[in-house]
């Protein structure tokens, strides 16, 4: 799962991002790459990506910043996301709310999102209105006006967002605790939206300092997808973004994660839980940790053992042994820091989580001794590669995937060669990756249970 758990407006955006995980890139029998973007760089260092798609006279205009929750100073969790909300307040020339009013009047839709690795802003709008949103997006990159008057009501909005996303939902509370347990040192341990007591304590000065350091053209990527070419976009990009001076924001430095040495258990019993669940997460390699070959293989592994109704875990636990209502695996290959490989299952009535855990461990042991079935590997590759063609059909998958990749410091090639890399993953590599990650005893096991039922599912 991507660590996008906070965004300005509820709803739509999460779905898009989940899409990006599965469609994290795409292939085609008739084209070499996936999205075939055009790219150029402005003189101040701002990267620009253009993905042409001429179905309707519409563009998706996005600005991504190479800053997210992992870049927050100690004790200031939630600041990246708080700032994202405040970017919709006023600038030196626009009153609070005017940005959104202008987007709406011009027939546009907009939102923003914050993750651990990046922050992004976007508008979808008729191509003849692109210049208007480019001017306003460039304006708020440096001209934001922040003071107590705009910050205080927004702090309440964010606390409500936290309640809605996390505190109102026992499985979301548990997920937050699992993250804080799996990562002992890396800032992925902090929730993107922030801990409540730290959100309450963030000051105007904290937020301004964060904004001044990270919001600059040399730390941003412009991605425009839709009815436009690089040739058409370039003069506009130079006019609005090219004139903004670069800022020396320094390197992104994060605590790194030591090898885990002990297994850990996290358990939540809550009176709101009516359907128990079990999960286990392992610290895993990623492209960000420089273990790209393993990451590609783990992506195929997750699909093969836990992707859908024909995957190994579903077949074993849900269909054959009838212990679970659901079972699967999850993995994100492209995180900037270490990733996590997850296994999950939810029991049928009368099946205890202990029984379910034991069955899951047996299946994992089988995978480690026998290896993953060759037909399962083949099917997983087929599904992943076909998703590439489907991704090209969408106006949002391309900019999402490329924006996220560049914000994490990957190249366009990293995205465009994804199909070739997935095609090259062999069963031996999948088995080796499984042994590398799943043989560890130092994972985090999480259980979600009803309160007062003696721990029985």
């Amino acid at each position, binding site marked *: 799962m991507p660590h996008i758990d906070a965004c300005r*407006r*509820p*709803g739509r955006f999460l779905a898009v991002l989940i899409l990006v995980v599965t469609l994290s890139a795409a292939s*085609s*029998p008739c084209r070499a790459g996936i999205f075939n973007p055009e790219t150029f760089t402005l003189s101040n260092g701002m990267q620009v990506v253009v993905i042409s798609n001429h*179905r*309707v*006279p*519409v563009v998706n205009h996005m600005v991504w910043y190479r800053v997210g929750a992992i870049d927050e100073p100690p004790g200031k969790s939630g600041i990246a996301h708080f700032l994202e909300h405040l970017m*919709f307040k006023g600038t030196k020339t626009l009153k*609070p*709310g005017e940005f*959104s*009013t202008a987007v*709406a*009047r*011009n*027939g*546009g*839709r*907009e939102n923003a999102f914050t993750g651990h690795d990046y922050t992004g802003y976007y508008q*979808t*709008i*008729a*191509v*003849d209105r692109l210049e*208007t949103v480019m001017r306003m997006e460039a304006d708020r990159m440096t001209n934001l006006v922040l003071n107590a008057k705009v910050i205080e*009501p*927004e*702090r*309440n*909005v964010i*606390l*409500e967002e936290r*309640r*809605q996303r996390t*505190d*109102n939902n026992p499985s979301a509370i548990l997920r937050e605790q699992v993250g804080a347990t799996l990562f002992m040192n890396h800032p992925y341990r902090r929730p993107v939206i922030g801990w409540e007591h730290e959100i309450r304590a963030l000051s105007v000065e904290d937020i301004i300092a964060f904004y001044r350091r990270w919001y600059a053209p040399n730390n941003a990527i412009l991605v425009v997808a839709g009815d436009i070419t690089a040739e058409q976009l370039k003069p506009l990009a130079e006019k609005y973004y090219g004139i903004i001076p670069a800022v020396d924001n320094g390197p992104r430095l994060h605590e790194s994660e030591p090898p885990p040495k002990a297994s850990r258990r996290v358990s939540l019993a809550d*009176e*709101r839980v*009516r*359907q128990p669940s079990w999960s286990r997460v392992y610290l895993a390699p990623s492209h960000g940790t420089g273990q790209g070959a393993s990451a590609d293989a783990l992506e195929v592994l997750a699909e093969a053992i836990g992707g*859908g*109704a*024909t995957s190994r875990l579903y077949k074993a636990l*849900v*269909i054959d042994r009838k212990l679970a209502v*659901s079972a699967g695996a999850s993995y994100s290959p492209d995180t900037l820091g270490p990733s996590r490989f997850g296994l999950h299952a939810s029991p*049928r*009535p009368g099946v205890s989580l202990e029984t379910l855990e034991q069955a899951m461990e047996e299946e994992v042991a089988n995978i480690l001794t026998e290896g993953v079935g060759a037909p399962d590997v083949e*099917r997983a590759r*087929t*599904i992943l*590669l*076909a998703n590439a*063609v489907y991704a*090209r*059909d*969408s106006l*949002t998958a391309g900019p999402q995937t490329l924006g996220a990749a560049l914000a994490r410091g990957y190249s366009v090639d990293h995205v465009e060669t994804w199909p070739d890399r997935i095609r090259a993953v062999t069963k031996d590599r999948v088995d080796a990756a499984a042994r590398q990650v799943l043989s560890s005893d130092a994972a985090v096991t999480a259980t979600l249970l009803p309160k007062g039922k003696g721990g029985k599912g």
Partner: protein
Amino acid sequence: MSRLLPALLLLVALPAQAIEVQRVVSEGGIEAWLVEDHTNPLIALQLSFRGAGALDPGGKSGLARLAASTLDEGAGDLDSQAFQGRLDDLAVTLRFDAGRDTFFGRLKTLTENRDEAFRLLHLALTAPRFDEEPVERIRSQILASLRRASTQPQDIASRTMFRELFPGHAYARSSEGTQDGVKAVTRDDLGAFVKERLAKDNLAIGVTGDVTSGNLARLLDQTFGDLPEKAAPWALPEIQPAVSGKTLVKDLATPQSRVLFAQGGLKRDHPDFYTGYVLNYILGGGGFSSRLYGEVREKRGLAYSVGSYFYPFDHTALMLGAAGTANERVSETIGVVKAEWKRLAVKGVNREELNDAKLHLTGSFPLRFSDSDSIARILVAMQLGGLGIDFLEKRNGYIEAVTLEAANALAKTLLTPDKLTFVVVGKPDGLKASAR
């Protein structure tokens, strides 16, 4: 700021020019609406059968949902694993889903697997096996999801609201079903559902992508040609929502209360539909620009999400709103919502607000055509709503035609602030739990 460009400019950007809808009728008389697009080697199909969850028998609430979830779990000579394996091997997406009024299906395939994908759809519609293992497995999944939903604020609020508004009517029940209802459904019920509900006379089809009208016509006959001519007859009475001005409270130990509010809306074929739609946009439909967003969220920080929605059904219509707000601030939020409702009813909207709303609603129309699935879905919605094959060209004209006088006349009669019904799920301060 070029914020007040005339609306005419926006009309130029209409998708109708880029998107041509063809009516395809097969030799066997099966009709589909098609948008050909050969850019990418894929085809998206969306289908609907009228009559779904609201027709579930009283003791079997959830029948349509269980049918939708098991239709792709084995058909013809392919058992569940063989059928799902075929879909996965070809990377074909096939899904079904049941709402109150409509049963939906969705197929997506690469062009190279087209014929096999349509064959699998045909098998699922005409020869589903409903073998014991998959039916029991899917039943257990639906029961688990109902258990989960039973403590989720949103789900409790919605079920409570529909029970309150539609007493004695099938709309009082959720098409998601109930524990007892889902348990009571037999495999024979599923077989009967398919025979009675999936027919030619209640079918609508939308297709987008890499297929010509000639090829599609052939596929339509192969896929839908042997469905029954007619669905079993059904009748649901029209109903006006029983709005009362009451506030119902359901206790749930959460830090944030879910607040739902509702009153009657306008059905899709109502002559004032677009006027009401524009009014709702101004009140609570307009994302970051609506009155509710401004008053509840921006000014007072009372909620993260707040909005209102025009929600037409086949036999009734609602204007439904929702907010999530801290338990200690629920009364304040309800007060603000009521005040905004009243302000719209009494004072109407001004010319600038109306103009902004029209600019947004016309200018954003092309945004809906963002991928093949969305276009196929729109093609089906056009048929379900009886909107005509030229709807894409006409739609912005309907918005443009809304006048200030008409909007403010309708605001007076449509908005009924005193009868707005509230449901609160949580531990709200200062509000008493009702008996329901």
